[in-house]
Structure formats: structure tokens, C-alpha cells
């Protein structure tokens, strides 16, 4: 069979809902595309643990401190699951680490921003995890089967994180004026990054990941689902939005494209976000400080007489 025939068969296979395993034949572009996508997801879980980790010392109670710590551990765990399946596509963990800290690979825009106080934990836990869950649930239908199996587990834990974040939000929203102001301040700072989170409008004709059903829905479609689901809930709690302000149109909550300022997202794509350098430096120094652990683990246990 020629390469062209194999490629045609593969396109037809994934185009009609076929699932691909790590050991199956796949076009080089598919392998590279899936690897890049999963690696970016893994990087985001790893780097996403850092902003919330910053707030662990500021938790208002021991219970909140323990639950936030567990959540941060879950996120690091997700990155381990994802790096593991990315490795099976042919890139070593060491190289993925080096590409991350040297800015050759990416992580999600929302993790390039600073956290200021406990209100940020509410917004991250409820709205950013909510946004992540919308995108990850859509990926459960992805054509790359090992990814969907890991995502099943990740989505189950993200559901829990969402409850955790909503619980913190409701505590602040039903609290004192100062507590409500904390949530509002965090919402004002995070709203635009959350809108950016889904990415600019998909180019359906050019996006190979969409064509090969690695992704099954467009960015704008996922953003629309998020707005419909969360805007009414935020309004119900008596909070208002900064720009871009969502409004109701034909029974849906929508944003005007011209109200979205994409410049901050473009800067982050060049790894020039407000916290990019500091977070990558933290990742690098942590990785280096823990070198002795990896070294100790890499050697099989020896019998002590």
C-alpha cells in the first residue's frame, strides 16, 4: 500500500469516528499534532498548579488549606498522566521539560497571570475549572483513544474541583462586603483571560486537529457553551462584568467580537505574559532542586543483606 493510500484510509477512518491507538499506524502530521496538543495540556496542568499553590498559605481555614492542597496535587497528577501518554508518541519527558522552560512549548494563557488573594482561588476554582471542563468534556470524543481514557479520569476530578471552587465562591458571595469585593476584584481581573481561554475563532478549513477529530468542536462553540452556562450564575449572585460585557441575544449569552481585546493573548503566545518568566523560573528551579529524587528513583532498588 502506498503512503497516499494509507493516508486516504486513515482520513476516512478518523473522519467516520474511528479511534486511534498509540501502536496504530498514523500519519506523521497526526502524531506531531496530537503530541503537541497533549504536551500543551500536560504543561498547563503542571503550570496551572502554581497560581493556586501561591494561595495555599493564605487559606482562611485549615479545612480550606487541606482541600486546596489536595486540588493542587490532583492537577500535578493530571500532568503526570498526560506526560506519560505523550511519551508514548515519541518524545521524552526530559525533552518536554526542557522545551517548556526554554519557551519552545506552550501552556494555557490563564496560568500566565498573578494571583492576588483568596478571591482569585474562587474565580480560578469555579470559572477557570468550569471553562476547562467545557473544553475537556468536548475532547472525550477525540479520535486519539489513549487521550480520551486519561481525560475520562481527569474530567471526573475536575467535576470535583468545580464543586470545590463553587463552594468557595458561594462562601464569599454570601459573606461580608469585603468578601464580596474580593470576588468582584478577582472576577474583574480574570474575566478577559477566561474569554481568551477558548482561543480566537477556529479556522475550520485549516485546523488539522479539527479535521482529524483530535478536537471535535470549534473554539467559538466552546466559548458560547461556557457563556450560556456561567453568565446567568454569576449574575444571579449579584456580580457585574467588566469588558467584554456579555449580553443576551436570541436566548443566548454572547460577546461582541469587537469588544474582545486580543492583545494580551498575543503577548502570552510569545511567552510575554505578566508572570510567564517568573513561573517558568520557578518550574526550572524546582525541577533542578528535585534532581536528587529523580536520580534516586531511577536506580532499581538493591537488596540490603
Amino acid at each position, binding site marked *: 500500500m502506498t503512503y497516499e493510500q494509507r493516508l486516504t484510509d486513515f482520513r476516512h477512518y478518523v473522519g467516520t469516528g474511528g479511534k486511534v491507538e498509540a501502536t496504530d499506524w498514523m500519519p506523521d502530521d497526526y502524531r506531531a499534532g496530537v503530541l503537541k496538543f497533549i504536551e500543551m495540556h500536560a504543561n498547563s496542568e503542571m503550570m496551572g498548579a502554581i497560581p493556586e499553590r501561591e494561595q495555599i498559605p493564605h487559606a482562611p481555614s485549615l479545612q480550606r488549606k487541606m482541600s486546596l492542597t489536595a486540588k493542587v496535587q*490532583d492537577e500535578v497528577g493530571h500532568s503526570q*498522566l498526560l506526560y*506519560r501518554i505523550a*511519551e*508514548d508518541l515519541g518524545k521524552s519527558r526530559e525533552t518536554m521539560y526542557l522545551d517548556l522552560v526554554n519557551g519552545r512549548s506552550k501552556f494555557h494563557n490563564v496560568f500566565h497571570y498573578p494571583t492576588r488573594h483568596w478571591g482569585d482561588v474562587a474565580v480560578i476554582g469555579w470559572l477557570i475549572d468550569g471553562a476547562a471542563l467545557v473544553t475537556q468534556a468536548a475532547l472525550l470524543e477525540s479520535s486519539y483513544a489513549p487521550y480520551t481514557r486519561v481525560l475520562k*479520569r481527569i474530567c471526573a476530578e475536575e467535576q470535583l474541583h468545580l464543586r470545590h471552587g463553587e463552594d468557595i465562591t458561594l462562601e464569599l458571595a454570601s459573606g461580608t462586603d469585603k468578601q464580596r469585593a474580593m470576588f468582584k476584584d478577582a472576577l474583574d481581573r480574570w474575566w478577559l483571560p477566561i474569554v481568551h481561554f477558548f482561543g480566537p475563532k477556529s479556522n475550520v478549513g485549516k485546523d488539522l486537529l479539527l479535521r482529524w477529530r483530535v478536537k471535535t468542536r470549534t473554539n467559538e462553540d466552546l466559548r458560547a457553551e461556557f457563556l450560556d452556562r456561567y453568565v446567568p450564575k454569576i449574575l444571579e449572585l449579584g456580580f457585574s462584568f467588566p469588558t467584554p460585557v456579555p449580553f443576551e441575544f436570541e436566548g443566548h449569552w454572547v460577546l461582541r467580537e469587537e469588544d474582545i481585546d486580543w492583545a494580551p493573548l498575543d503577548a502570552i503566545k510569545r511567552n510575554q505574559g505578566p508572570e510567564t518568566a517568573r513561573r517558568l523560573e520557578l518550574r526550572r528551579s524546582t525541577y533542578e532542586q528535585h534532581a536528587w529524587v529523580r536520580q534516586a*528513583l531511577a536506580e*532499581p*532498588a538493591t537488596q540490603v543483606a
Partner: protein
Amino acid sequence: MDVYEVFRRSGHKQPFEHCGTVTAPDSAMALLMAKECYLRREEGQYMWVTRRSDIHSWSDEALFEPAADKSYRFAHAYRDVVRKRELARRRAGQL
């Protein structure tokens, strides 16, 4: 470092099921990693790990295609029971 396949079972009524993979230098460490990754919320009480290289599979899945019609192995080969029972009942009436 080797890749280990991880299996877990919850209780005695279900079989062991594959739940993922870990990278580890030996089986003891693989079990520890597997516990951290796949038993975080009481998802099972039993766990196996085995080196990926120790798992054997068919290189060609086309070999799973049955060589001949073996529909008699399935319940759907034995339909039309009502009509068949009626025939038997009629035959019994002739005795």
C-alpha cells in the same frame, strides 16, 4: 526506567481492568507510582503492575476475524422460538 502497565480491581465481583501506565525503575516503585496516580479516591482495592515488554499481543488484529460463519456461538442464532414452540405443541397434539 521502564514503562509499566497498571491494572486494578475493585472488590471481587469485577475482573482486573487496565487503568493506565507509569514510568518506573522497578516493580516496587511502579506500584508506588501506580497507587499515587490511580488509587487517589478508593477506585480499587487490588493492583497489579507489569512491564509493558512482558505483555504479548497479536501483531495483526485481522486474525480476530472468524475463519467461517460461527453465528451458532451467539444467542441470535436461536430466534423464532414462538413459531418453533407452536410447531412442537401441534406435533404433541397429534400423539
